[in-house]
């Protein structure tokens, strides 16, 4: 696997899992409008994961679904930050959202400069949507600035951003749930 494919897979795993975790707020966010906004961000992230998996799948001779759902839990390269189940802690959820969006901006910026036009093109497309995620993260971070629970969340979560080798315990449950339907009818074409 080339370094670039590895990187794309890493980002795809992050996007899929952060999308999954953010979607856990659907129906229970602090206010209805936020519920809609945050669910929409979650859905965008999973959409980005799908596009990135497709790109990686072409190089690896497999499919996006197989990459997303048929690997063993240990093969996922997502950061510890995105694996944590943070419901019902909104302050830490927003802390993760801010840390994640800031880091994501950097690496999507790098992909935009790729020599591979498919990679650069997809990165540019993703970045146009991410701009709204960043706006959303910034408005919340401005609003919660100085809130002790938010500040503590940032401190606690920041070091987890680049830890990818060891998964947190609750990732196993997430994987179970996430791949359950796929595993229920092995080999089915839906």
């Amino acid at each position: 696997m080339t370094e670039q494919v590895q990187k794309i897979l890493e980002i795809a795993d992050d996007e899929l899992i952060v999308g999954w975790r953010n979607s856990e707020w659907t129906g229970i966010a602090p206010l209805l409008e936020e519920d809609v906004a945050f669910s929409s961000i979650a859905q965008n992230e999973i959409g980005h994961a799908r596009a990135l998996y497709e790109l990686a799948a072409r190089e690896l001779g497999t499919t996006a679904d197989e990459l997303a759902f048929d690997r063993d839990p240990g093969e996922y390269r997502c950061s510890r930050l995105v694996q944590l189940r943070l419901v019902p802690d909104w302050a830490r959820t927003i802390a993760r959202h801010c840390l994640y969006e800031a880091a994501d901006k950097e690496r999507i910026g790098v992909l935009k400069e790729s020599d591979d036009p498919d990679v650069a093109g997809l990165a540019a497309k993703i970045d146009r949507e991410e701009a709204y995620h960043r706006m959303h993260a910034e408005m919340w971070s401005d609003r919660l600035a100085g809130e002790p629970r938010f500040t503590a969340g940032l401190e606690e979560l920041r070091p987890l951003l680049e830890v990818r080798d060891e998964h947190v315990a609750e990732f196993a449950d997430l994987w179970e749930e996430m791949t359950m339907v796929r595993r229920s009818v092995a080999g089915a074409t839906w």
Partner: protein
Amino acid sequence: MIYEVFRQERKGQAFAHAGSIEAPDAVFADAYAREQYGRRGESAALWVVPRDAVHEIENFADELQKNYHRVDGYPLKEKLGKARELAAEGANALSTDAG
């Protein structure tokens, strides 16, 4: 705080009321309006207005029923119908004469 959202479907068209949203301030209102009324490509632009800024006016005095003051004041349909009838009669009369 409640904000009213107006939506323009295509460039150049009039804005129409889309709905209202609740948000703590204008920044949040913009973000929420974008999510609810703009993310499926259904809008070319949005106006987001605090509800307090909207002046509502109702109860219009029209005691004398002065229909001719209204934009839709002169209903032409009836007059046109009559004119057509007259014209048809005239034509019939002419053809009878000729026969």
